[in-house]
Structures are given as C-alpha cells and as structure tokens.
C-alpha cells in the first residue's frame, strides 16, 4: 500500500523534520520507490526465524560499576550553542 501525503507529514513530525509544502510530493514519491523496492522482502517466508540484531551475537561485556571518567563538563559544554552556569539553555518548556 503506497504511503500517502498525510503519512509523509506524520513521519516527518515523528522525526522532527519540517518539510516545505512544495517538497512533500517529491518525498512521497521517493519514499514510495524505496518502500516498493524493500517490499521484495515480503516474498520470503521467515516464519520461526529469530531476528538478528548484531552480527556477532556475543553477550554484552560489562565493566565494574566504578567511576572511570573525570568530570569534563566545561570542555563538553564549550561546543554547545548556548549554556549558562553549567546548564544547557533551551526555549521555555513548562509554562
């Protein structure tokens, strides 16, 4: 089932990307081409096959629960667009 213009808007909202009205159709067209081609997968029977998320399937390595890094807040915040007193600044979220 092809993706609709409305769905393109909804996905864009989920991905927090704004798309200009004039570009919606082109995205709709390209996404439909991509989805039509990945739909080839549907022809394959995969009942009972365990999905593979990582190629090596090794168990996750754990480390001791100890502090291993020193505090580098100043260095990390030096690349932030705006900070104040060690805090990241964003537009007001709660009225």
């Amino acid at each position: 089932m092809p993706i609709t213009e409305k769905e393109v808007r909804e996905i864009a909202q989920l991905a927090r990307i704004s798309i200009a009205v004039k570009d919606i159709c082109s995205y709709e067209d390209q996404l439909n081409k991509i989805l039509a081609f990945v739909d080839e997968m549907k022809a394959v029977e995969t009942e009972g096959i365990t999905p593979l998320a990582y190629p090596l399937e090794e168990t996750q390595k754990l480390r001791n629960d100890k502090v291993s890094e020193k505090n580098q807040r100043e260095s990390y915040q030096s690349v932030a667009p705006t900070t104040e007193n060690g805090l990241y600044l964003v537009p007001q979220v709660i009225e």
Partner: protein
Amino acid sequence: MNLPNSVTKIIQGLEDGTFSSQELTEAYLNRIDNLDPEINSFITVCHERALLDAKNADKSRSNGSASKLTGVPYANKDIFCTKGVRTTSGSKMLDTFISPYDATIVERLGSQGMVMLGKTNMDEFAMGSSNETSFYGQVNNPWNTNCVPGGSSGGSAAAVSAGFTPLATGSDTGGSIRQPAAFCGISGLKPTYGRVSRYGMIAFASSLDQAGPMGRSVEDLAHLLSPMAGYDPKDSTSSMDKIEDYSGNLEDALKGKTIGLPKEYFSTSLDRQVEGVIEEAIKEFEKLGANVVEISLPTTSLSIPAYYVISSAECSSNLSRYDGVRYGHRCELPIDIEDLYKRTRSEGFGEEVKRRLLTGTYVLSSGYYDAYYRKAQQIRRLIKNDFTNAFTQVDAVISPTAPTTAFEAGTHLDNPVEMYLGDCFTVASNLAGLPALSIPAGFVGGMPVGLQLIGNYFQESKLLSLGHMFQKSTGWHQHFSRDDLKGAQ
C-alpha cells in the same frame, strides 16, 4: 622530494634517514595545496599541527623511542572525532563542531607517532555511494574528474589515489570503504564487525558500521590495520579476539586455498566488461594455486532491501541526538522547543539524510515494525547463514566490488533506488559482519575495476595474504591516476 610509492618505502626512508618526517609531511601538504582544489578530497588540512607532529616524530626517531609507523603521514575520514580539530561528518549540522575528544583509533594512531595531514571529505553522515551528498561539495575522481570517487569514504580514496597521503582511514556501513577503493583504483579493507573500535566514530548504523584502512596496496593496509585493531573498553561491541600478525602473514601461499564464486553475483546487473576483468582475476588466482569453486548464496537479492531497512532504522535513532541543544547547528531564535528541534534538523541535514531518517522512522513506526524492521532482521539471519554454510567449503568468496566502474557525477541523484542498487555486492558482508577486501583488478575504459574478497570472521590475515599474493603477481595496484606518481621512488 619524490614521494615514495609505498608505506614500506616510507618506513625504510625514515629509518635510513633518507628523508625526515618533516620533509615528507611538507611534500604531502604541498601536493594537497597544489592539486586538491581540483579533487576536493579534504575538508580540513592541518598544516601546523602536522608539521609539529612530524617534528616530534623526527625527535623520537633520533632518540630511539620511535615505533615502526612514527612519522608516517596519514589522513582521517571526517567521521572520526579529532580533539581540537573540526569534525563535520560531511554535514552542515557539525560545520562548527570541534571535537573535545579523540576517537580511539585516532588516539592509537597518534600514539604510534603517525602524522595526521587532515580530515577527508565524505558523504553526509556516511550516507551515500558517490560523495555527492557532502555539505562540502562533491569529490572528483582522480582518474577522471567528471566521475564520482564512490562513497562514502570518497575523500579518503581519492586522496590516496591522487598521492595526497599514503594511507587513510575509512568507515564502511554498506560498502563505504570498498566501493570508493574500487572506483579510485586503491586497496581498502572492511574488517570483521568488532575488530576495530567504533568509539569516537560518528554513528550511522551501529550494528553495521566498521572502521578500516585504505591505501595503495594490501601491504600498506596491513601496516595500518595492526595499530587500529583490538579490543577497546570504550566500545562494548569491540572484540577481544586475538589480533593476528597482519604484516607477517602476507606471504602465506595461495596453494591449496579454496575460493568460492557465488553464482548469484554474476547476474544481469553486472557490467559485462567488469565481469570480464573479474574472470581474468579468477584465472590469476587459479594460476597461483587456488581452487575456485562455484557456490550459492541464495539470499543475495534480499541483501539490499534488508540493508536499507536496517541501516535507515538505526540512523533514524542515532541521528535523533542532533537537536540543537548540546553541540552542532542550532536554528536562530526558536520560538519553542518543538521549533528548535524541527528547524535545527531541517536546516542542518541534507536531502539524502532526511530521506533516510524518514524511511527509518516509517519502518520503526507502530504498525509497520514487524513488516519491515523485524522482517529485515530475520532476513539478516538468513544472509548470515548463507555465508556460514559457504565458509564450511571455502576460504574466501570472490566477486566484483561494484557492478560498474565509477559513474559520472549527477547520474543517480534523482533516483535514490538506482544509487542503492550499486551496493549489491558489498552490503551482505556488513549485514553478516564479515571482513571484506577490495583490491584493483584491471581497467574498463580507463577506469579502475575493484575485486572483492570476503572472508570468514576474524580472518583478516588470510584475506590480506590472498590480496597481497594477487598484487605481487599482477601489479594492478601499481597503476597511478597521476603521471607524476609513476616516477615515484
């Protein structure tokens, strides 16, 4: 000075004192300054830093504290974080980002005393197969500047090919080391998933991404892979498997090795002349004593669909971090938090990245997850099983790296699916996590053709020796895109 044409000769020259690292570094920097405007392979060139590192390298040579690679120049793909140096990942989003830390491989190569010449151009966030999606402009193929160098590590491949650096790092999510290596006539290795640390490598699709070496010859790749490989406590997916002696095992004989030829790879999409070059290469392997047998990888045609679902899904998750708050681009005067996110991301990302973010968001969204994402992961297991079966009979799988030689810029820009189909021979080894090597195997119409060898898990050494023995006997890696490199020492 005449630039040496192999890393082995560079090491020799530095050890003998034929030239210093400062002289060598200066020669490469001059070459970049003079000729890169035509190629655009670098986003950032680190003149001062490189000369300072070279001076320090010469000092350690003279006081006896040098290691093998001390003073050897190289370039990093701009996907690797470099402390104090701009790291853009080819995106406007990170145009002003100066990394506060080094990627593990940058730290490791730096601690060997290697000299970083600069950061190479790439498709934006490594999403592309032609280097045309870079915010910093397309890279031109040194063999024919109307053609693309491949991607996403197109800057690294073009820089090695044009003689701007003897070695470069790359990253490979679906072929991004191997395909540009093939298009630019150089050698490139995607190691086994987990062989090289991903810490500080800007994430695209975390279950597929792997860093690897790019250079003129397999022998050069072995020099660079040794310090790159190995377990890193900062990357929990990096492997503790033992590291082999990559340079020491290069001369392992081909006699008695079995190479598998997957019948599905020689299909209609493959250019006939490229096929002819690969057939010649297969004969060469047989002449060297290898047995070549036909094998079957039945899931081959499903690898691109599965790859584009999984890689888009993972990128839509990974790139959610670019929100205009902690680093990177931020839109002007946001009216609220929603506006901050949406305008920042719309301004900061290019078309191809947005397309993949939308695709990834769609396949992960409620109601579609099972049909796309879960299905792709099930197919991923079938693809892995195909290879596991194949490796019970063969030492390596042989194929072309790409179905064509480098195409002209602009050819596939309007049709993303056409561009994606060019990755048909490379994506399967990322999905399965297998090591794969691309080496030059000949020419079609003056443009280089790449040959791919896929190996079993953690058998980089075997792959490199297969490639090295082929190069020793054919010399295809000694064809140069620039006439003045022929006369090199």
